[in-house]
């Protein structure tokens, strides 16, 4: 059976920030919990880490009307269609799966950290001990086994759902319409569309660590989509040119000009 393109929908307006998903992810992926300090927020660890592939971000926000809102956002890999990380990965550790998500083959990773620099969402994190990067792989093996990702399974309120791309986008748009106000769908309009979509209650720019218009960095596009093909072309051209030259002009042999010294001393 052919795998369908899936999307995980995060409806932040249904999230109670229980951290069930944060813990379920660690349990499934056997990631350790580390000793942290409370830096003045419920948010902990403070950021995504090599051992924290999804994180609930807590944000106290006062909107333009003076209403106080406590915003919760589940952060993690967006599983882009045009994934900057896949583009820059030299070893093929990062790859597109049959579901349209971005998978990670840990043993192919050489720890070059190109992806860390490239990702517009700052997702991949480096594990110094293993010299590899880590990130959410949208529970690839669970999807292959016909199961929900660990985070989706753990969510008690239905803030996390997963399904066929067209159906999830439809559900997101319906929800946004129900909510009204500044509610919007985030993820469908950039990097070719992401396989993680959000329903946000506020405009994207309000949210911590959420880029307003993420894109594959220009430098990477120039490098991978222009310079690399051009340089490959050039490299190829040099090889072909050298070969043709050999065919046409033959190898470089010693010639008369080489006996210059003898000529002078003759009859």
């Amino acid at each position, binding site marked *: 059976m052919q795998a369908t393109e899936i999307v995980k929908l995060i409806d932040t307006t*249904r999230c*109670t*920030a*229980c*951290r*069930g998903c*944060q*813990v379920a992810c*660690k*349990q499934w992926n056997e990631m*350790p*919990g*580390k*000793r*942290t*300090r*409370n*830096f*003045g*927020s*419920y948010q*902990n*660890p403070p950021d995504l880490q090599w051992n924290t592939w999804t994180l609930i971000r807590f944000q*106290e926000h*006062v909107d333009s009307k003076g209403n*106080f*809102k*406590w*915003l*919760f956002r589940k952060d993690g890999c967006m599983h882009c269609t045009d994934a900057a990380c896949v583009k820059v990965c030299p070893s093929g550790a990062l790859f597109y799966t049959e579901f349209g998500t971005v998978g990670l083959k840990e043993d192919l990773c050489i720890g070059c950290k190109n992806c860390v620099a490239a990702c517009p969402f700052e997702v991949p994190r480096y594990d110094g001990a293993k010299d590899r990067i880590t990130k959410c792989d949208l529970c690839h093996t669970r999807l292959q086994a016909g199961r929900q990702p660990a985070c989706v399974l753990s969510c*008690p*309120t*239905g803030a996390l759902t997963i399904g066929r791309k067209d159906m999830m986008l439809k559900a997101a748009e319906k929800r946004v319409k129900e909510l009204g106000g500044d509610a919007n769908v985030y993820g469908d309009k950039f990097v070719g569309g992401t396989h993680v979509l959000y329903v946000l209650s506020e405009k994207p720019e309000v949210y911590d660590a959420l880029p307003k218009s993420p894109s594959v960095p220009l430098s990477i596009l120039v490098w991978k989509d222009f310079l690399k093909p051009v340089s490959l072309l050039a490299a190829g051209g040099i090889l072909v040119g050298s070969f043709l030259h050999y065919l046409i002009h033959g190898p470089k042999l010693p010639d008369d000009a080489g006996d210059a010294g003898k000529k002078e001393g003759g009859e």
Partner: protein
Amino acid sequence: MTNHYIDLKNSDVILIMGSNAAEHHPIAFKWILRAKEQNGARLIHVDPRYTRTSARCDYHVPLRSGTDIAFLGGMIHYILTNKKEFRDYVVNYTNASFIVSEDFYFKDGLFSGYDSKARKYSKDTWVFEKDAKGIPVRDMTLTHPRCVFQLLKKHYSRYTMEKVASITGVSKEDLTKVYAEYSATGVKDKAGTVCYALGWTHHTTGSQIIRTMSIIQLLLGNMGICGGGVNALRGEPNVQGSTDHCILYGNLPGYLKMPVASQDTLTKYIEKCTPKSSDPQSANYYQNYPKFFVSFLKSMFHDKATKENGFGYSWLPKMDDGAAYSLMHLFDEMYKGKIKGLFAVGTDPSVSSPNTAKVRKALENLDWLVGENIFDNETYCFWKGPGVDPAKVKTEVFLLPASASMEKEGSQSNSGRWVQWKYKAAEAPGDAIPVGEITIKILDAVRALYAKEGGKCPDPILNLKWDYKDSKGRFDVLKVAKQINGHFLKDTVIEDKAKGTKTEFKKGQLVPTFDMLADDGSTASGNWIMAGSFDAAGNNKMMKRGKDDPTGLGLYPNWSFAWPVNRRIIYNRASCDLNGKPYNPKRKLLEWTGETWVGDVPDGPWPPQADKQKGKYPFIMKPDGLGALFGPGMAEGPFPEHYEPLEGPLSKNPLSGQLINPAIKFFNSDLDKVANADAKFPYVCTTYSCTEHWCSGALTRWQAWLLEAMPELYVEIGEPLAKEKGIQNGERVRVSSVRGNVECVAMVTKRFRPFLVEGKTVHQVGLPFNYGWLHPKDGGDSTNFLTPTVGDANTFCPEYKAFMVNVTKL
């Protein structure tokens, strides 16, 4: 709960007050969200703190900790002034029409009959006028000046918007908003419900806060209907199961009453506990009390319990008259050196009990301490705790490893009274065994010693029915469950006169309902409310997982067993009019067909009230059969009244000359200091848990993923107060009360705002209580160093949520 979790989805307005439902009942919270999504229900969160619950509700209304009765009293005033009550329901289903004795009065904060020396009421005047037959006299027009309805109106006429706003710190706009929205459910086709938890019970007036809400729900006709009721969200460590099986000192299983010493015969006890009613339309179901109690005695002592020896009544321990044995009393006696040994089972009072300094000092007086738990904790290690010299402690401590909940089979009861059987999912490590097994082994050894050496009071121990082991000698949970359900002790024929049937039961067969229990010693039942958890054929109904929901109301009658007798919504006959027609046909919980009730298990099979011969009132567990607006059973008065917390910001109660609850008990050791309206401790403090930790944290602090998410003790402080004190977010501070102090991280937040109370700014702060010195070493110690040893006048549930502190930079 009078209703159940799934029923929350049927509500039109959900008031979450005294609860942080999203954080502490995260799974059940989805039903609250369903109400919003499917019914367009309004979700209102009233709480001193803006929490993760507030974020998901339509709006949040902050109020000062400890002022809930003022807030709700204002709502009663609003309902009656604006005539929002459901008239028919109030007239017919409550005691609104009852005439109260002319000797009853309320004056300046006190009801008639108060003994200020004993701090106790005589309830002689809290009675109704009765006719020659002994039936309460009623005025169905509700106009008699001494009818309950008029007295209620008079009492709450003092709870004006101005007064309530000044006491609670809630603006008049917010009060009006909540009152208007909630009281709109006083109509036939709207249901309002309340979800409450420890935010209400953790006060010296806790029981009365709940009573105030019960009055509101009766006035609005919200009791006994889908999406209504008064719904306590019980604690996750099977608190519902625990109280059902009498963990509270004043109860016997099934909420029967613990006898007191002066009730020295079975007859005296039965006489005191069995209510009487002369009204033929009152079912007064508790008149069957003797059947439940004698069956309980038979389950304890079996053949040794005979009619001649009062069924072994003299072998039951008795409380001293007037004494109480709550957790606070226990540690007070221990502190005085009167308690020598303690079993601390699945608990960490060194972190979770009020007034930690007193508790920890008390433990040092023990000769022995036995812990039964899955991990070590601060209580078991008290002898090497901060400031304790182990060389000076003579206590012998035993640690018995116990199985965790998923390592044993048994029942677990949720707040909705659904008793769900669950199975073992993993083997317990090492020597750990279920607590039930530990109990069996200990009592086996005790009985053997008694048999061999004799000792004090051998009869209660040696006469116990004691065969709860399987063929391998291990604790057999199914045997115990069946004993709890109850069985026939001889061949019995039960006659159903109404149906004209006779059913035969054999000796040893399980009783299918408590209706069949007898007071003549022919039945045994360890817990009468659990009768019917097995059917007569011996099938365990708690194991059932039927997903059918014929009414569509979420009753799921074939999923597990709900006590009593699988009734899902209590007092459900109040959801119909006098003729048994549902008030709201769109949410048809019950309907009288002319012959029988269809829908949920009816709360009494009797015909509706309009049938003067055979019909009964709907509140069958009340002696008068009607919902109590006037409730003389409470320690501090038949109408709830606002009193300030024991330790609060005010020196005068704005409502009366009585500052604090007149019926609460004081503890007087040198460590029981109180600082009311004291400039040294100017901020109102509350305490609570968090989603990531469980109670004292004694289980969850060892779990790395949970500890990572919530690593250490913090105090939540509003931005205005932090600014005033120059405290930065994330800075370390000290929080202190007159009893003790803790160091922690300051969480400066917009979610806490100051209150304007009696013209002055009053700040509120809060801390979780999930941390202790044992682990992690740098995570903070018990928040209960701050809390006072004082509790509710009826239940002694401690006042953890309103006391006074100071916050200082380190």
